[in-house]
């Protein structure tokens, strides 16, 4: 074992290999659609449209890091969005009050998940799966099974204002991601959370606040999912409550893909953001090249499978690899 070189320098290959793939992907589309794909306009609009998925995928990180999983993010996102839209557009509350209430709801959901998963000890994958469906139902009830329209443009204006031709929502999402990167890489809380994810019992007997950390993580996940919901309301201006469920799998695809890179084996914010943009680049490119819709699904699926497989193989080849 080459013990002199630190892990960090070894294995650059499989930690950032995806970036190389990304570059190739970019080049290919630039060749196939030279005058539409590699244009500022296209790329800025590409980025501007990723805020929601970025936030939703990042939302998964806190729970995944601590070794839990939250399948209710789509539901949390929906209920927050519905609350906010309904209170503002229908009940006539100020948009900011509505947003506050929406986020409070999200936090409450996170607390319930945490209570069941951490205090009671139900497997989080199960309890959150149920919770997700339950929340969709509640959202439909809240919205009275109607499509909500007429949300105050104030929110949209805030989120859609272009800065360097990219909307503020995108910067918001990236900002969140960077903050998370700092927390998980450089703070006690973050490092503790990661360790807990590796072996909760050892962490507990070493005095780490396992339960508290997990509870906070569930709440953080819920709040971020809620934030994604609010961005949806903002950039759409209206909402059809049942329409957000289809974002669940893409969010997980990105989060999982992200956990295979940068810090392989641990869900991490930077990897997640890269994954989201990597996948979005592909979709955008395919549209411009003008291929059939089904190819997008194939690409999306294949991208995840291949990327993860490659990074796994590289990891095994790398000197630090284990039997």
């Amino acid at each position, binding site marked *: 074992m080459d013990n002199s070189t630190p892990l960090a320098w070894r294995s650059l290959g499989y930690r950032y290999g995806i970036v190389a793939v990304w570059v190739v992907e970019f080049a290919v589309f630039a060749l196939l659609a030279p005058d539409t794909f590699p244009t500022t306009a296209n790329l800025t609009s590409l980025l501007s449209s990723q805020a929601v998925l970025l936030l939703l995928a990042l939302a998964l990180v806190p729970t995944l890091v601590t070794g839990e999983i939250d399948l209710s993010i789509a539901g949390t996102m929906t209920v927050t969005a519905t609350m906010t839209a309904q209170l503002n557009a229908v009940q006539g509350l100020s948009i900011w009050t509505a947003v506050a209430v929406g986020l409070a709801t999200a936090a409450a959901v996170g607390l319930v998940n945490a209570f069941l998963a951490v205090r009671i000890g139900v497997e989080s994958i199960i309890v959150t799966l149920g919770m997700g469906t339950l929340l969709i139902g509640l959202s439909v009830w809240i919205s009275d*099974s109607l499509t909500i329209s007429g949300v105050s*443009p104030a929110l949209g204006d805030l989120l859609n204002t272009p800065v360097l031709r990219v909307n503020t929502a995108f910067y918001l999402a990236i900002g969140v991601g960077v903050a998370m990167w700092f927390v998980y890489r450089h703070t006690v809380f973050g490092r503790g959370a990661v360790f807990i994810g590796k072996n909760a019992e050892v962490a507990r007997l070493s005095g780490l606040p396992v339960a508290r950390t997990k509870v906070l993580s569930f709440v953080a996940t819920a709040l971020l999912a809620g934030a994604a919901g609010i961005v949806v309301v903002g*950039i*759409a201006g209206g*909402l059809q*409550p*049942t329409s*957000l469920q289809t974002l669940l799998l893409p969010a997980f695809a990105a989060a999982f893909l992200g956990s295979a890179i940068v810090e392989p084996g641990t869900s991490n914010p930077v990897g997640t953001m890269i994954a989201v943009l990597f996948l979005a680049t592909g979709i955008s490119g395919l*549209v411009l090249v003008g291929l059939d819709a*089904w190819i997008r699904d194939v690409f999306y699926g294949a991208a995840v499978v291949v990327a993860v497989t490659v990074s796994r193989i590289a990891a095994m080849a790398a000197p630090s690899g284990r039997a």
Partner: protein
Amino acid sequence: GAQSQADSGSTGSVPAEVTASVTAHRGPVQASYTGSAFDVSGLRGKRVWWVTQYAGNPFLASIGRNLTEALGSVGVEVTTCDGKGNPVDAGACIRQGIAQHADAIQVDGPEPTTYGESLAAAAKAGIPVLSGAAVDVTTTPLFSGLAGQTSQPFGLTGELAADWIVQDSGGKADVLFLTAPDVVGSVSEQKAFAARLDRTCPDCSLSVKGVTLANWANDLGPTTSSELVKNPRITYVVPAFDPMTQFTDPAILQAGRNDVKVVTVNGNLPFLQELRKGSPIKAMVGIDLDALAYLEADQLLRAMAGQPTLTKVVAPVRIFDKTNVGDLKLDGKAADDGSWYAGSGASADLFARLWKR
């Protein structure tokens, strides 16, 4: 809403208007259009962004194919973008269209309110956005920010379904109507159906059940069979759209009810084939997707040419049942060229005359 069974003993009667309406709509459609001719020569080479709510939806896919053909005929090229069933991806598609300086954007499926903000952005960029196959344009005013709208006549399809049932049952039917509450069109269809039944059939009863899109595969079956058990007198089941029959028909069999007649809407090829085979589907209100696509194309061209758009135009519909389904040529080509309605290529010819090259 269901209505009273008060005089359910008496034998029903069939109002003349119903018989008339059914007979009228059984016959082939006359291709007609109120729009004036205008010059499209300047539009050659323009690009239209077609945003579909969900690429996996065959109904929308067919519109897409026809739209590409229609616009292609005047040298306008179409780029397809998949909204993947959620407002985020749909919004992304519209943004991309704007970024690519598309000359017009056609959004088929999503309700305009769910992309209102994107409309603002398009307006800033001076790109017209048109809505299609979303809300019943005969009853819904143009959403602010839209340059135009088209749709199938959701209301009418509902009424025709009602008429067929009233006539078939001799004015005495117990009906189960299945909607997708999260698809507004299906609700318009159901409301019109109920109103029509109310007016034309005092001895009929109606119960309505909703199953959201995401639960079709899991719930349509049990919902249907349970309702049939709950009210054994039901002999007509009306799924708002024909793809629902994939789940309702088996349930009807499983409920051991081969006396139940299914009447549905859309007229996708496979379900017309079912109808001909004599499956539970006994009547179908078909929508001329070729015409619908040409109407969309026409609105798009007008918008791009700076002409005023017509905001209440809808696709022609036709009732199919055993009396006329036999005459149809049931294959993929016919499904896309309007053969079943105003005749093969009718829309193409009609609009070729209106679009001055």
